[in-house]
Every structure is written in structure tokens, then in C-alpha cells.
């Protein structure tokens, strides 16, 4: 019987398989950041162990880093200690580190692909749940906990039980103005935040094949929000074209060998998935969340749902709690929800295409009065490219704040946070209570919806902008 893409990549990494034990998998690439690594390095030190493969390990600073005044010492002493701890550990154990101020610094999931380190058919791990992002290249990529970080540092392997596989087939054409973010939010709303649990998701179908690499990363990034540890997309010409010429992509004959191998990485026609979900791209619309988990979403044209309409008691309770926390009432049209803050950034939507889309909408327009718009590139390199293209000027002229790279308001570990009761439209991936700051309220949206929302001051899509005149002379 044929094998799925996930099974092929899995099988190619089995170091040891024995009855009654989880498979021991080899890890091709281990990404580190300051938050989930200190206790792991401590563990190594206590046991007198080394990092087995420093040549397969790379670290960056992202979660705690400020996005303003990055040349000054970090004001928050606790954040500073965490960053200094990573710097000390990287130096002591010989791990390559891109610190704040370095052009390769940035959100760990933006940095790996951009350097060409994330490749088809590789296993990628990081102590961060959004490691699923890297599956967009047709590798197996999953978030791990700190004990596992220590395990990979010490052994370059991980014992793992093989998850089941689920195909999510998206056929057709995404309508104008509907993005990868809308698609993944719709998928999560359909299968639920636990729907992917125990599965590796494979996104496939004609609508997926048409997506750019950056859009594919947006999709795979949020696999975890559907409960799946990993999501993947078979590599194709789009993948190869993205990789070719990147600093760590194979060169010369190695490139040819690699491509020949990568081309074998597709699900066989006769392979069987453990579960299948079908989505019609043509039926999708801009999608936003109204609640406090990423599965609580609806098309922008809809209204806040009535908790009483849920049959399942715990879902009903969750919806009630969510509306209370979000300060919303059932039946309120989503379009009428006013926001204080717009956040564009994160490993979901902080790459060049996202910034370009936002700039296109903000060009010649103004951020609405009373709205704070924060635009944070996913990496220092993305920031640099955006400046080269003049996007920073567009943002500033529109009245948005242009910042340095990092996780920023995605999780509010640095000073970029919502105040209690403040409401944001955010291109990030989690709308949990307090995620963007204590008492903050988050609506997850696409970059396009974020930009239109910034201009109008309430949740909106670019189509709603037709009556807002573009400033003369632009």
C-alpha cells in the first residue's frame, strides 16, 4: 500500500524502531529561542552533557525583545536576564545565535525558512508550538516542550509515537480578497480546536497548490490551533523556487540530488489517510474570530453567535464565557465591532507578502482616529526588505507605527501589550484571554482585514473601503 507524505518523512528519520517503544526519530534542525531553552541548557550542565550537533542547531531572540530602542539596554530586568541567559548558553555550548540587532534576528519561524534551513523532507523541532509553520515545505515540524528540547540538544533525536494522518483537501479558487489566513481560520472553525488532535494534517488540493510559500506557512502555522502538532504541504515547484539561492539551500550537484529526493515527497495515490476533510475554496469569505479560542470564528459578514444555539453544554459555556470576556452580545454584527488597536505581525502574518498587502491598502489612506496600528516585521531581514521597498514610509504616512522585529504583541511578553478592556484586530494566531496583555480582547484577522479595520476603526474587509477616498495625489 502507498504511503502518505507524513509517513514517508517519518520513515526516513527512524533511528530505531522496537516493539513496544516509540520510534526514535532523527532531528534535522533544532531551533532555539530564549523562553523555552534556559531550563534545558541547565539540565545538560547538571548532567555534564554537550550539545550533540551544534551544526544542526540555531538560536534567535524573539519573544522578549523590544521593538523600539533596540540599541538601548532592555528595560525589563526579567526579560534581560532571559536574553542574557540564552547568550551565555549559546556561547558556552557553541550554538549559533542571532541576537537583537543582527540582520538574521527575528521570530524563530520566520528565520528558519528565510535562511533556507527549513527544507522539504526534514524534521524540524523547536520549543514553540508554532513550529508547525515549517511543514509548509513538506517536512515534519512540531513544537516540543523544554524536556524534549534538552533531549534533542543531548541526542539530536526524539522518541515519538507516530500520529495518525488527516487530509484536508481544499479545492477550487479562493475568491478575491480571501487569504490563507481566512482559509485556516475557517478550517479551525470547522474541525474545532481539538479536531486535529493526534493527527498530522496534510493540506492538499488545487487551492493549496496555488498558494505561495508564505501563504502556505500561514496555513501550516495555525495547525496547532486545530489541535494538530504538525501540518504539512507537499513540496512542488513553488517550494523549490523559494529555496533556490537561499544561504543554506543546497548548491550545485547537491541541489540536484536534493530536488530529486524532494520530488518523491508526495502522498501516493493509493495511500490511505486516517481521516479526511473537504473544503470548497469558492465558498470562503474573510473570516474573523469573536471568541477566546481560534475555533470561535465566523465570516466577517456574520453576527456574534448566540451561546444558546450550541447543543454541546461545554461549548455553550465556553461561548458564554467568551462573550462575557470579549464584551460582546449575541446578534451583534461582527462588522460593527470597534477596535482600539491593530496588530500586524507574528509568525503567522509577519512576512513580506503580508506587509505588502497591508501597505497596498494603507497607501494614501489614514488610520482611523483613536486607533493605534502597530506593524512589526517577523524578522529583521523582513524589516530591511520592507524599508528597501519603501513600505515603512507608507505605514508611517498612514499614521501606523513601524517597529523592529520580534513576537511583540502576539503574546505580550515585551512592552507591546493591550491594556485591560482594549480590543485589537490582530494578524497573530491566538485570541486566548489575556494573550496580548491582561484583560485585552483579540480578534484574529488576515492582514487585509487588519489594514481595512485600521482605516475604518471597526472590523472590516478591503471591500468595505470603496467609499473611503484615497488621498489625492497618490
Amino acid at each position: 500500500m502507498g504511503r502518505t507524505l507524513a509517513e514517508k518523512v517519518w520513515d526516513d528519520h527512524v533511528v530505531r524502531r522496537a516493539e513496544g517503544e516509540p520510534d526514535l526519530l532523527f532531528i534535522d534542525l533544532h531551533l532555539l529561542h530564549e523562553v523555552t531553552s534556559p531550563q534545558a541548557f541547565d539540565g545538560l550542565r547538571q548532567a555534564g552533557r554537550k550539545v550533540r550537533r551544534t551544526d544542526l542547531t540555531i538560536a534567535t531572540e524573539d519573544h522578549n525583545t523590544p521593538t523600539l530602542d533596540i540599541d538601548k539596554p532592555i528595560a525589563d530586568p526579567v526579560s534581560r536576564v532571559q536574553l542574557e541567559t540564552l547568550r551565555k548558553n549559546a556561547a558556552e555550548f557553541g550554538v549559533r545565535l542571532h541576537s537583537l540587532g543582527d540582520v538574521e534576528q527575528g521570530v524563530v519561524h520566520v528565520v528558519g525558512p528565510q535562511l533556507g534551513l527549513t527544507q522539504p523532507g526534514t524534521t524540524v523541532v523547536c520549543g514553540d508550538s508554532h513550529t508547525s509553520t515549517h511543514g509548509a515545505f513538506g517536512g515534519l515540524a512540531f513544537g516540543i516542550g523544554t524536556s524534549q528540547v534538552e533531549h534533542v540538544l543531548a541526542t539530536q533525536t526524539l522518541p515519538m509515537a507516530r500520529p495518525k494522518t488527516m487530509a484536508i483537501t481544499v479545492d477550487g479558487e479562493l475568491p478575491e480578497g480571501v487569504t490563507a489566513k481566512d482559509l485556516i481560520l475557517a478550517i479551525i472553525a470547522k474541525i474545532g480546536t481539538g479536531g486535529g488532535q493526534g493527527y498530522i494534517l496534510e493540506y492538499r488540493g488545487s487551492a493549496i497548490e496555488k498558494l505561495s510559500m508564505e501563504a502556505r506557512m500561514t496555513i501550516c502555522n495555525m495547525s496547532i490551533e486545530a489541535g494538530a502538532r504538525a501540518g504539512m504541504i507537499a513540496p512542488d515547484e513553488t517550494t523549490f523556487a523559494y529555496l533556490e539561492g537561499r544561504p543554506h539551500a543546497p548548491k550545485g550537484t547537491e541541489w540536484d540530488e536534493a530536488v530529486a529526493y524532494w520530488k518523491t515527497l508526495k502522498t501516493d495515490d493509493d495511500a490511505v489517510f486516517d481521516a479526511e476533510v473537504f473544503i470548497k475554496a469558492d465558498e470562503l469569505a474573510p473570516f474573523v474570530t469573536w471568541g477566546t479560542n481560534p475555533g470561535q470564528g465566523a465570516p466577517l459578514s456574520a453576527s456574534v453567535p448566540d451561546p444558546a444555539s450550541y447543543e454541546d453544554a461545554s461549548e455553550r459555556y465556553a461561548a458564554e464565557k467568551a462573550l462575557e470576556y470579549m464584551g460582546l452580545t449575541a446578534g451583534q454584527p461582527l462588522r460593527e465591532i470597534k477596535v482600539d488597536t491593530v496588530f500586524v505581525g507574528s509568525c503567522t502574518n509577519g512576512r513580506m507578502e503580508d506587509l505588502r498587502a497591508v501597505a497596498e491598502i494603507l497607501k494614501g489612506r489614514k488610520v482611523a482616529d483613536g486607533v493605534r496600528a502597530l506593524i512589526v516585521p517577523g524578522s529583521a531581514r523582513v524589516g530591511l526588505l520592507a524599508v528597501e521597498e519603501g513600505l515603512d514610509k507608507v505605514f508611517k504616512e498612514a499614521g501606523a507605527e513601524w517597529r523592529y522585529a520580534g513576537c511583540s504583541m502576539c503574546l505580550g511578553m515585551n512592552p507591546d501589550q493591550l491594556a485591560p478592556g482594549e480590543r485589537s484586530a490582530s494578524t497573530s494566531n491566538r485570541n486566548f484571554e489575556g494573550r496580548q496583555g491582561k484583560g485585552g480582547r483579540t480578534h484574529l484577522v488576515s492582514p487585509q482585514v487588519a489594514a481595512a479595520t485600521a482605516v475604518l476603526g471597526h472590523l472590516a474587509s478591503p471591500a468595505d473601503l470603496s467609499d473611503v477616498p484615497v488621498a489625492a495625489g497618490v
Partner: protein
Amino acid sequence: MEAFTTHTGRAVPLRRSNVDTDQIIPAHWLKKVTRDGFEDGLFEAWRKDSEFVLNQPERKGATVLVAGPDFGTGSSREHAVWALQNYGFKAVISSRFADIFRGNSLKNGLLTVVLDQKVVDALQELVEKDPQAEITVDLQEREVRAEGVTASFELDENSRWRLLNGLDDISITLRNESDIAAYEAKRPAFKPQTVQV
């Protein structure tokens, strides 16, 4: 890792579904560089509410958390497990756990027990009615026992063996070092390397 064989203790009922790791331990606690001292961060936001179940005096010293479905969703932070353990929890019972959280818990010796929602409901009712009621989580027998409730649970043999013996994964893996070396020797040259180019 401390071994887990069987544990009996009073319980805290947490009737919420989808309790994510940001609720278990908020992000600002993640700046700590140690594995201990997280107990005050556990459910920090909810604990501001005096009515919250953890604040009720009769729940003091409870060691078993009986949670709603989909407990531990969200981020991979192992701090969530440490916070539960630092607070004093030895076991968490739910009808469904998020994968990463479950993996993390078993690696740290916090036993996460999956039971049918009906059984979880029965346990919650029991401990809501009688805060002194005790729950026994028996890993030897793979069984949860409380007044009026006896339910067996599943846990793969490998995890069970590791927990019963308190073994850590790294030393187990390093027994197979030669397998790792053999794999490395035949790994294709085109695979990525992080050394600066």
C-alpha cells in the same frame, strides 16, 4: 523524575473546557529561567476572583485536578506542567488533553489521566458535593477510584514503565547511541546545516 505508582488525594473540580496554557500559566511568568517557583502563577488571572475554586479554603492541599475537556491547549510551554506541580498537583483528569501538554506532563511525572466525559462528570459532582472526597489514581492497576466510581484508564506501556520507574528519556535514548551514530553516518550530504555560510 520522581516515580509515580499510585496517589490518593483530595481534588479540585475545574468545570471549564479548553483551558489553554495561557490560563494555566500566563506568558509573563515564562521569563523565569528556573523550573520552580511557578505556583503563584498557576491560573493567575482566575485566582484574582475570590470565588474561583482554587481560592476556596476547603480546596487547600488538594492534589488531583479534575478538568473539563481539551485541557492544556495552546502553547508548548512546559511551565504549565511545572506550575501545576509546583502548586502541588500530582495528577490531572480530563476527557481530552492537548497533545503537547500531555507529552510534557508525562515527561515530568505529572500523571494525566484520560477518562470518559461521563466519568469525569461523576468525579466532578462527587468532589463538588464533598470537598473531602478523595480520588485515587493508581498507575499500577491503571485505575481511578473514588466513592461510587471505579474506572480504568489507558496509558501506553512505555510511558507507564517510565513513570513507574521514574526514568528520564535522555538516559534511555543514550543506551542506543550506536543507532544514532549509524543513522548520522548515512545521512545525505544535502541536508541543511546551521554553520554560518
